[in-house]
């Protein structure tokens, strides 16, 4: 709760600080604040809190853990916003403020205990993101991305809201805990079709937000057009919060309807894995590849939902937590490097990375670690993320889905290797100069790479947390 208050207050303050127009104040200020919020959030670990706002918001270990991921991701992402500042971006303070508001939305999505809170959280997050997607105002691709994201997003939110309404109609409540009981023992059997349509609509709405197939079609275009800095935010924070909300919905409100949603989620999972991986393999732009790769990672996380079998604690929930963390760190690292390189070389295709191993060994190394982690190669956090998820699914007997996921991760190897091939095996352009990186950015990248390796060699301290 402290984190929501702090973030909201600072977001508003930030709007007033806009006149400073100085990154010297805004960036370190925002980072320090987020560190403070991270600390405040950590202080809530293993502390029992009364639910807030008449049971609309709960702060338990589940909330604290996932909030930790989104806060950490934002902290390590911020240093890459610097070029906006040096470019004399006039609305910098607004962007920082929107980013903080988006975080508030994400935390509400994680901690909700009431469907209205879920809706409000999703809306706060989404509206901020619509604006940020179009923040590069003079770039027509950014404008297109914002419009596309907004139209599709508004549509999906509408479906989600309709789903919530139908669920309410069938059960008479918005509160998650009461929903669980109401779904398990329906008062009026004739309302069952309404309940199922409601569930389906909610799955569609959230599936859109986490870009799960077949509701992923907007992802590549929006990710490509959005300025890389915000793309990184979209593919990490939005996804983590979305999955935390998704798991909570299925595990707290709808465990009794498992017979209905389980096949749906399984089908979505297989389809997401297939379309994400095959789509990524066909790309020639690193940014679009990362967009499709984020779709495929949604597929792996859906396996976690399947393996959870409607339980919020235990192996599957811990695996989703670990996977989200490893994925977020690696994705921020990948987008961070990509942003620095593509700003300098004006090229986000694979060719733009050519010879980076020679010109910028550090960037190339961090990108390598990130790609290996996303591909799930040992020595990186991504390996244990996949391992925990798939082991949880095998433990529940979903062998077929796991075999399919393993086959798809073999496809993944192919496209995650392509940046590495470009960086190390292809020569740079003759006139290529090193990409300029400032101290705080390289320090952040080193931290990200080390964190990924740490998760890959000593996963014990974060596995089995929930």
């Amino acid at each position, binding site marked *: 709760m402290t984190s929501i208050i702090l973030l909201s207050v600072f977001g508003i303050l930030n709007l007033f600080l806009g006149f400073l127009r100085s990154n010297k104040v805004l960036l370190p200020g925002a980072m320090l604040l987020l560190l403070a919020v991270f600390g405040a959030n950590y202080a809530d670990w293993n502390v029992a809190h009364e639910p807030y706002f008449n049971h609309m918001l709960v702060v338990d270990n589940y909330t604290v853990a996932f909030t930790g991921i989104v806060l950490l991701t934002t902290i390590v992402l911020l240093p890459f916003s610097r070029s906006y500042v040096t470019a004399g971006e006039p609305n910098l303070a607004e962007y920082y403020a929107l980013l903080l508001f988006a975080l508030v939305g994400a935390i509400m999505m994680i901690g909700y205990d009431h469907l209205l809170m879920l809706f409000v959280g999703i809306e706060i997050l989404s509206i901020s993101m619509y604006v940020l997607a179009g923040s590069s105002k003079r770039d027509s691709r950014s404008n297109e991305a914002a419009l596309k994201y907004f139209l599709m997003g508004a549509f999906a939110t509408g479906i989600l809201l309709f789903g919530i309404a139908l669920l309410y109609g069938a059960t008479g409540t918005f509160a998650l805990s009461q929903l669980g009981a109401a779904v398990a023992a329906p008062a009026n059997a004739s309302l069952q079709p309404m309940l199922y349509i409601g569930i389906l609509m909610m799955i569609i709405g959230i599936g859109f937000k986490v870009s799960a197939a077949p509701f992923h079609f907007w992802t590549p275009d929006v990710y490509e057009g959005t300025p890389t800095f915000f793309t990184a935010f979209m593919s990490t924070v939005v996804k983590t919060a979305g999955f935390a909300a998704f798991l909570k919905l299925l595990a707290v409100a709808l465990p009794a309807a498992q017979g209905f949603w389980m096949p749906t989620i399984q089908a979505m999972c297989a389809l997401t894995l297939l379309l994400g991986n095959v789509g990524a393999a066909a790309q020639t732009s690193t940014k679009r590849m990362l967009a499709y790769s984020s779709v495929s990672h949604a597929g792996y996380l859906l396996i976690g939902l399947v393996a959870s079998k409607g339980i919020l604690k235990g192996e599957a929930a811990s695996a989703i937590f670990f996977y989200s963390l490893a994925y977020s760190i690696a994705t921020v690292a990948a987008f961070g490097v990509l942003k620095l390189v593509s700003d300098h070389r004006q090229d986000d295709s694979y060719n733009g990375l050519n010879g980076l191993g020679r010109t910028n060994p550090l960037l190339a190394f961090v990108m390598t670690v990130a790609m290996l982690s996303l591909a799930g190669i*040992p020595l990186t956090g991504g390996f244990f993320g996949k391992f*925990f998820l798939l082991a949880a699914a*095998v433990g529940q007997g979903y062998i077929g889905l796991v075999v399919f996921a*393993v086959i798809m991760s073999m496809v993944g190897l192919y496209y995650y290797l392509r940046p590495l*091939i470009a960086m*190390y095996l292809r020569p740079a352009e003759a006139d290529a100069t090193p990409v300029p990186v400032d101290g705080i950015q390289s320090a952040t990248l080193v931290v990200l790479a080390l964190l990924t390796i740490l998760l890959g060699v000593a996963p014990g301290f974060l596995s089995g947390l929930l």
Partner: protein
Amino acid sequence: MLTAVLLFLPLAAALLLLLTKGATARALALGASIIEFGLAVYTAFAFKSSGAASFNLNYSWIPSAGINFHLGLDGLSLLLVLLTTFLVPLILLSAFKRDFENPSAFYALVLFMQTGLLGVFTSLDAFLFYFFWEVALIPIYFLAGAWGGERRVAITLKFFLYTVVGSLLMLAGFVYLYLQTGPAAGSLAQHSSELSAFYSLKLSAAEQSWLFWLIFAAFAVKMPIFPFHTWQPDTYTEAPAPATMLLSGIMLKMGIYGTMRWLLPVVPLGVSQWQKPVIILSIIGIIYGAIIAIRQRDVKRLIAYSSLSHVGLMAAGVFSLTQIGLQGAVVQMLAHGVNVVGMFFIADAIERRTGTRYIPDLGGLTRRTPVLTVCFLVMLLSTVALPLTGGFVGEFLLLAGVYQYNAWVGAVAGLTIIFSAVYLLRMFQRVMLGPDSSFSETITDLTGGELLILVPLIALVFWIGLFPNSFLHLSEPAVANILTLAGR
């Protein structure tokens, strides 16, 4: 403690290497690898030969999942550790001669790979084993890819995908086995991935039948066994010589070792079910590799196919499930490691002098190069398995093992000696003897530095050939232990 130092010393050196340049980097890399070899020799003297693993190091790695960081050495592991630590300094020395970009990164990757290899040979926990198995792959991918020949991009990609797909299948097999285990004593987790837990599983023959292929896929690709070999000749040819030496001299042994430690005793019923098909595939590999080797005109490619042919015999020996066949495989792993590194080194020495590996362009090199000729001949004859050399002991025991399994199969496998004499001696004749070529007068003999690499290799060839028992007695209890477990 000793095992931990042995494992992490190369890694520490590799990290330090990233900060150094030029002569310091060379001295550091070589120094670290020689100290490492010294440590391995010390370990060998401190080692008491028995069936069980000694120098155990066991920490809880992921407590919630019952996965341990468990290392240990038995005779089999020890011999492969010795081979690895013996070859790495020589491979590094051979790299010093070359002129390429960013050498300290190259040495760092070699040492990083050494950690992976040593981890594979000493892990006693399934996930740790898999972990190191992949850790060994990443550096060799970059070694072969970044410093390789013209077609390196496509070829290293193929190599990487082949091996990773193989090892993912192995991981799937391990996960299945892991979920069948019960909790280890004193552990909170429900399962255990300890090797001993895998050994005590009682699985049905039907389960073992498909588990066999899941696990064997990784080993078959790594060795490689026909028909999983298609990455091998290209990769060996395109990789820079030191990387080829690592691939053929040590990495190939991961497959044989894995089969002996993680396949035969883990799914014994599956092994006995698939024994015959695998031996037949191995024999096909022997003949196929040899026939293609006869037709090769590229020295490096010829040696690559020769290696394919020889590894087939090793696999057949292992799958004969006889004490003598497995012991033969152990000796042959050492002998083949030495031979193939020597052969690739000489091929590289000739290429560096003449600028070509194309056999028809070469000829009559021997007149100006007596020392090179002698070294080449010794390595070659050991590969052909002439008595007194290491290759002879290995192949003899292997053939004896295969013969015990089935006389006819043994007879066909025996063709390997005739075939290898044909293609290797023909190559020798056309490269070193034969009509003079444009290089006959200008080629220079081996330098002192190059002899520094070849002399230890030649010494070991004769040591294995004359006193094989100094190695065989180390691995005997370990091999007997594997066979007892495989006979369940």
